[in-house]
């Protein structure tokens, strides 16, 4: 099996060494440097997740990806995720088809909701319509990806009649995934529409998703489609030692979850829950290169997945800490996982 290893960011606002927050503008410039450095370090994919908040100032990831594309030649570039329900599928296709042109065919998209919902009120959508919005827009996006004139009608945007949507794809559809957080019906939808499956595993034991992977392949068969890859997206942080990685990540993780906990109903992480999540059966990849590599290899095997994207960073971590994370991930974790899986 050919494995792909990526890094994802939500544009987590950086801190400086004294803990003072960097500006949004500086954080965005840092993300460009991180993307360029990811290629040098040997990472296969760099993804940017759409967010619209003070702590994650990243609403226009495609613009940032274009800047990275101009300075790189090999690394694949994509969204992680695009909040398709509150966007226009035609515009999303146009932006990523443009990125695909700029980068010489290196664009991808992951469509989903993420845990990010701020875009709904911001763009005038009702969260209660989420299902219908996503279903319709994902269906249209699948049509757009085929290339050629599109005819489409639905309730969530203006109809298209034999519409030519530009820029045309140069060499067929670019890779497109649907991000799924644990709803089996979303797995079926990805298979039905012919998208690859990205499992977002951000809490609890990853092995429980093995059945989803199986469900996806069976559903593809049932729809008469060829097998498509399954990927895993999970948060983490790599540093020289387990102790250092945890010491850097834990206060930032606790801070950000505590901040969003009241409105989302999340539990505030405790020392105990953090130990569980960073342990062998948890969803966080926090530790030394060896610890993280072992965990990635174990879970890719258990889940039958061919792709792993580490969501690196957390608001308040410094750009230097993130660059070290990227370097260790690219130069040590990825080769070690390949070795473990060969």
């Amino acid at each position, binding site marked *: 099996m050919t494995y792909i290893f990526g890094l994802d960011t939500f544009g987590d606002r950086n801190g400086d060494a004294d803990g003072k927050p960097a500006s949004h503008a500086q954080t965005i410039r840092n993300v460009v440097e991180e993307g360029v450095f990811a290629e040098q370090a040997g990472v296969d994919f760099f993804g940017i997740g759409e967010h619209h908040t003070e702590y994650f100032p990243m609403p226009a990831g495609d613009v940032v990806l274009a800047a990275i594309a101009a300075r790189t030649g090999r690394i694949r570039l994509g969204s992680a995720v695009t909040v398709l329900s509150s966007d226009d599928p035609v515009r999303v296709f146009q932006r990523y088809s443009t990125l695909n042109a700029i980068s010489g065919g290196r664009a991808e998209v992951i469509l989903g909701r993420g845990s990010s919902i701020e875009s709904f009120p911001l763009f005038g959508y*009702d969260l209660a319509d989420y299902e219908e919005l996503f279903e319709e827009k994902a269906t249209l996006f699948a049509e757009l990806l085929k290339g050629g004139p599109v005819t489409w009608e639905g309730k969530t945007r203006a109809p298209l009649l034999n519409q030519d949507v530009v820029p045309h794809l140069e060499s067929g559809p670019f890779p497109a995934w649907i991000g799924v957080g*644990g*709803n*089996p*019906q979303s797995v079926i939808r990805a298979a039905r529409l012919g998208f690859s499956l990205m499992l977002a595993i951000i809490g609890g034991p990853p092995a*429980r998703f093995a059945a989803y992977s199986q*469900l996806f392949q*069976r559903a593809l068969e*049932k729809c008469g489609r060829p097998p498509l890859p399954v990927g895993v997206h999970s948060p983490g942080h790599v540093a020289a030692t387990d102790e250092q990685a945890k010491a850097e990540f834990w206060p930032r993780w606790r801070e950000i979850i505590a901040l969003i906990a009241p409105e*989302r109903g999340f539990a505030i992480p405790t020392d105990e829950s953090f130990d569980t999540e960073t342990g062998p059966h948890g969803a966080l990849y926090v530790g030394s290169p060896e610890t993280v590599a072992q965990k990635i290899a174990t879970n890719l095997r258990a889940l039958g997945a061919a792709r792993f994207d580490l969501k690196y960073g957390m608001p308040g971590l410094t750009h230097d800490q993130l660059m070290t994370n990227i370097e260790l991930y690219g130069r040590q974790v990825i080769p070690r996982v390949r070795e473990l899986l060969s």
Partner: protein
Amino acid sequence: MRELSRLAVLGAGHVGPVIARLAIKAGYPVAIATSGDPEDIALITELIIPGAQPRWASDAMADADIVVLAIPLHRFGDIDPALLDGKLVVDAMNYWPASDGVLEPFEGRGSSEVVARRLPGSAVVKALNHIGYHELEDRARPAGAPDRRAAGVAGDDPAAVAMIADLVDRTGYDPVRLESLRAGRVLQPGGPVFGVVLTQPEFERAVRQDARSLR
């Protein structure tokens, strides 16, 4: 031995399959249903909820003693209350405006109290709503296990609460009974036990402390 009650789980999203699996493991006969054709969830049932029977919602409800509501709260209005007459209804739903949008009828109220008002012919019990779906199975333990955790069971009908307390116990948690749906507000998002998985003494302390703070 008396046979266990027949369960119908409505909802095959994040939560429904987890509750269905726990109930199957505990020995309950379980049907699962969505708003659509059971054929649509046949594959999900086979691979994710082995042992459950996919059915049309109306059939599943008609044959069940206990109906578990595990659908998004904004879809609750789509259910015909008459189909739930005489049933014991477990409300595992949550009102969570930041995540699912604002629903006017639920603003500032106990969500299960609003559910119960719409289901006058049913005994409504609030349970299995406050432990995250990704933790619910992982944390379940047999009775007597030293690391067993607690789960709240709230309702206005003591016999119904007793039955669901038994179900919660069989699925792997120490049931903590709350004497009314009103008291069950402590199980809601933002409440003292929502999203945290506590032992029975910790759970009871958290609920008591919250009751004091409300006074």
